[in-house]
């Protein structure tokens, strides 16, 4: 598979930031009260992610290692400010409903995580596609959660009435506790599908941490920082 499409697949499925990596939980739980909010938040994050990945990848040889975090933050913050103003100017409705969570994209762990573990070590083009993949994965995750919450909590999807009038919306789903219920159920569902695929012997998408983001992986203590795919290759070679 081409490196660029591989990055997109990685972000969408293998290391989906919402359902697999469990990153960026704060906006995930807070703004997904409706599908449109989920898409809005996801796309804003995607835009910031692509641009910051690109710039950080360009600057990766200039930024000194010891001050890379502040440097990343400055880059991310500039793009967030741009997105913030653009949203305020062109989609004020969405801007109002997302509110504080737009500036908070600065500290979204997905963006800093990708900058740290991918963009600062890889060339520009793959970094851009990594940003697209991760951003789309995040958007898909947020939209899924938003659709389920909006459907159950308000009987609508994208503001259109779906459920019959007699349907009594379960308001709790568009309040904070509902976010936890829906996220947990969706993650359980996708783990179930994965396990099912694994049992049937089909090649299921690998777990997080066995991709290329060793720096941000919680399981690196086990594999010692060697990529699982590399170890397999070595074994095959030997």
């Amino acid at each position, binding site marked *: 598979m081409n490196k660029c499409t591989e990055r997109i697949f990685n972000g969408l499925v293998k290391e989906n930031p919402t359902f697999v990596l469990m990153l960026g939980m704060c906006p995930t739980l807070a703004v997904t009260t409706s599908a449109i909010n989920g898409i809005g938040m996801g796309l804003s994050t995607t835009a910031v992610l692509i641009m910051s990945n690109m710039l950080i990848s360009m600057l990766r040889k200039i930024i000194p290692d010891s001050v890379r975090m502040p440097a990343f933050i400055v880059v991310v913050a500039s793009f967030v400010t741009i997105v913030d103003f653009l949203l305020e100017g062109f989609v004020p409705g969405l801007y109002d409903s997302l509110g504080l969570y737009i500036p908070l994209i600065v500290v979204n762990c997905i963006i800093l995580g990708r900058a740290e573990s991918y963009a600062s070590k890889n060339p520009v083009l793959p970094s851009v596609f990594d940003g697209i993949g991760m951003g789309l994965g995040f958007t898909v995750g947020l939209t899924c959660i938003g659709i389920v919450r909006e459907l159950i909590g308000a009987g609508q999807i994208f503001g259109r009435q779906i459920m019959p009038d007699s349907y*009594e919306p*379960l*308001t*709790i789903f568009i*309040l904070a*506790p509902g976010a936890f*219920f829906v996220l947990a159920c969706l993650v359980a569902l996708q783990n179930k599908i994965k396990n099912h695929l694994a049992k049937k012997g089909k090649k299921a998408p690998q777990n997080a941490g066995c991709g290329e983001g060793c720096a941000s992986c919680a399981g690196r203590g086990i594999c010692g920082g060697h990529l699982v795919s590399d170890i397999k290759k070595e074994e095959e070679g030997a």
Partner: protein
Amino acid sequence: MNENFNVSSSPHIRDRIRTGNIMLMVVIALLPATAFGIWNFRHEDAWILVVVTTAAAVLSEYIYEKLMKKPVTVSDLSAVVTGLLLALNLPPTLPWWMGALGAVFAIVVVKQLFGGLGQNFMNPALAARCFLLICFAGQMTYFVYDGVTGPTPLAELKAGQAVNTMDMLVGNIRGTIGETSVIAIMIGAMFLLLMGVIDLKIPGSYIVSFVIFITIFGGHGFDPQYITAHLCGGGLMLGAWFMATDYVTSPITGGGKIVYGICMGLLTGLFRLFGGSAEGVSYAIIISNLLVPLIEKATLPRPFGKGGEK
């Protein structure tokens, strides 16, 4: 080895009491309140809600355990107690399917997902009540008595109106199905006390600390009329005697029980006097449930022979 020397791990004291026996006693103790509630709200057909909610609790436990291929524990009656307690905490006019939904939530989400009986970290019936309260705020706070809609006595009390304490004692008032009659609840509670199922520590410290809080912050001083109205109104009695004493979600240490009771008393007073709504018993108990592991850790008894004076 002589077979009289039976080496085994604790517990060494065995008894004939099973979970089912205790739960059966709780069900029996709830009967007066249930019967009174069904009679009291006969015009609202409260019996349908009680039956449906209880049946939904039992059924969902059975179906979940069948689906998950776990041993079916319906016969220990804990699901009956959960369903019945939930029904007693619902307003009589609530649509039956909302009660059923609450029962499914109580059993599947609050109890079974955390590992079944003995593992749930908060009272399933109360968690379900709060779930329904958040979901259907309108229906859950819609109270009717004898065809007349209006606020509960507790809400009237909060608004500064006079209430009839005698009616509140007997139960001829608006409220949820099982909470209105203090007399019926006390009959059940006395039964549980006499059978040794519950002891006085939790309800006692709960009620006493609540009274002290109301006396200090209620703005009426030590006014027996006002305090009685607060004690008899809302779910305080039902909560203190039947839900705060739930074995799973209350501390097992003696000192811990008292701390837990005080915790609930203070929180209930805080919610009732300074909160947005007139009632606060369910939230107070649920929050105290969450504190139980901490309370138990802090009040762990010293094993015999360990530690000592330094």
